[in-house]
């Protein structure tokens, strides 16, 4: 069940032009630079600062509530962070260099790090300090600036978008959750790619650059690493690449390709959804203060618990669930590592819906800050659009549980369906999936408890 969206003439034309995507990226870069400036020189009050409000409320809402669930990595296609580095690599802004030539040292990323472990570590680092970063404009500005400096440096030394593929802490979870999206970029006919010796989609041509994400589109089987930059749509001389609308979550139904680093990403994301729901939107003031008091004894205890939950406790419980399933079912030859990684597919819908539920609870409450910040981005008393005086108004706070419950139940249903499917794919009895199902149900109840109890 697929429909080639990019075959609609208007969409095809839009995707082949370079201007639209470039304009969107440039616009995002403008916002990004403004967020950095606001963080560096604007008011230190987070809810009056463009950097905090537009990055952690507006952008985050757009990303986790709309773009990732419905369009996968579409954000990566217009993300401003790698843009300056990429423009330097290309020594061009819009039109491609002849042959898609890049100006970089072109080093290959070390083989040992061609995975998302560094992205996991980066995300954990940001998440650990989130109580500071999310609420302190200067910290947000420095983190964004840091991302951009690393991205530019990586572009100058390494080939293509190495930063996006292997380093960006945000890209790691967008990639993981983009498997849920009802949108994919794939080749129309693999046989056409096999017979195409030039492979311009990977090497580049006068029409565009070789895949910036270091992927051969002919071998693309899931959304995880495709940044939807659409370069391959421009460089394929056989018109053999399209963007399809598909069944949501289609990538997760495949047996192959699940890796331990991605399993850990799923666990880290779920653990962080729990921690944020407890610390940030829970009623325990002491937790918030401790999480923010970086360097104190209490904070080190918080950091220890945070890391233990992310790296040992939740993975340990999940491992126990998978192992129990293996014990209940007739033993199969598959290794525990492989079973662990494959069952971790359940964490994708479970984690994504957990993040949606968590995000709903603070985005809807705090979104109204955006109107005043639009008029006064630096908190200097301006009133550019006449909206500076608009008061904080929480949107539909009474309806939040009625949104969170269905969202979490949809995630649970998808997770259990995947657990049973994984058991069957490994030749296990359906009973093998029951402990994983219990894990997922307990996680859902735990989150609901934090929101509703």
């Amino acid at each position: 069940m697929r429909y080639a969206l990019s075959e609609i003439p208007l969409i095809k034309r839009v995707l082949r032009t370079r201007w639209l995507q470039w304009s969107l990226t440039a616009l995002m870069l403008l916002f990004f630079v403004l967020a950095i400036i606001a963080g560096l020189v604007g008011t230190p009050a987070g809810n009056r600062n463009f950097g905090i409000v537009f990055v952690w409320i507006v952008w985050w809402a757009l990303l986790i509530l709309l773009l990732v669930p419905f369009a996968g990595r579409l954000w990566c296609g217009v993300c401003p962070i790698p843009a300056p580095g990429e423009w330097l690599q290309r020594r061009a802004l819009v039109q491609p260099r002849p042959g898609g030539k890049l100006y970089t040292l072109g080093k290959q990323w070390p083989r040992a790090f061609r995975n998302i472990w560094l992205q996991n570590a980066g995300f954990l680092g940001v998440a650990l300090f989130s109580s500071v970063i999310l609420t302190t404009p200067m910290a947000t500005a420095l983190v964004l600036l840091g991302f951009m400096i690393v991205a530019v440096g990586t572009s100058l030394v390494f080939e293509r978008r190495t930063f996006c593929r292997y380093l960006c802490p945000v890209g790691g979870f967008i990639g993981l959750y983009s498997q849920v999206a009802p949108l994919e970029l794939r080749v129309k006919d693999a046989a056409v790619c096999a017979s195409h010796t030039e492979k311009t989609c990977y090497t580049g041509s006068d029409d565009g650059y070789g895949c910036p994400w270091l992927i051969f589109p002919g071998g693309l089987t899931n959304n995880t690493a495709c940044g939807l930059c659409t370069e391959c749509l421009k460089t394929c001389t056989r018109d053999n690449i399209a963007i399809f609308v598909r069944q949501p979550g289609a990538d997760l139904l495949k047996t192959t390709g699940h890796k331990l680093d991605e399993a850990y990403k799923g666990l880290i994301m779920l653990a962080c959804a729990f921690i944020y729901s407890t610390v940030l939107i829970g009623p325990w003031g002491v937790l918030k203060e401790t999480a923010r008091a970086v360097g104190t004894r209490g904070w080190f205890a918080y950091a220890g618990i945070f890391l233990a939950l992310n790296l040992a406790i939740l993975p340990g419980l999940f491992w126990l669930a998978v192992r129990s399933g293996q014990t209940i079912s007739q033993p199969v030859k598959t290794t525990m590592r492989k079973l662990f990684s494959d069952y971790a597919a359940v964490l994708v819908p479970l984690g994504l819906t957990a993040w949606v539920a968590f995000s709903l609870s603070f985005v809807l409450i705090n979104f109204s800050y955006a109107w005043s910040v639009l008029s006064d981005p630096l908190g200097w008393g301006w009133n550019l659009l006449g909206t500076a005086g608009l008061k904080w108004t929480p949107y539909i706070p009474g309806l939040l549980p009625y949104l969170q419950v269905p969202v979490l139940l949809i995630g649970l249903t998808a997770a259990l369906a995947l657990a049973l499917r994984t058991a069957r794919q490994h030749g296990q009895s359906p009973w093998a999936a029951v402990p994983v199902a219990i894990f997922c149900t307990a996680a859902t109840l735990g989150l609901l408890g934090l929101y509703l109890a």
Partner: protein
Amino acid sequence: MADSGGRAAGLLSISRTRWWAAGITLSLVLLALLAPLPAALAVGAAPQERHVTVSARSFAFEPGTVQVNLGDTVIVDLESTDVVHGLYVDGYGFSTQAEPGRPGQLTFVANRSGAFRFRCTVACGNLHPFMIGKLVVGPNLTWLRAIAATLITAVGALAVFWVR
């Protein structure tokens, strides 16, 4: 031919059973979440007047959780120990403010059961958007309904997807 015909009939029957199971599960989940309950179940202890003093400081309310019963008349005295703070109750929409030495008061009838966040309404520092407390109006049927719906979903999903 007879064999493949039999298998097709079997698959059709599985598919039909699955749809039935899905339909029953969805109905039960909706019932658990939305069905009206007898008044005796919905109302807990006899309504009374409750005085609660909530102390606000950057960035916490003390007590963090306030527990009352459905029908109670709740009088919240908000005291601030540092700067100006506000208190807004999600779902009820009531709010008040306090500054050191000048407490605020809020009176309302707890006529909706469930857990409701209350939060600071006056920008009081970096963690202001996360200065949150919780009002629990018992019996917390929203939470009990969510538990029931989750368990029904889990059992129902396993039943629906158990057979290939």
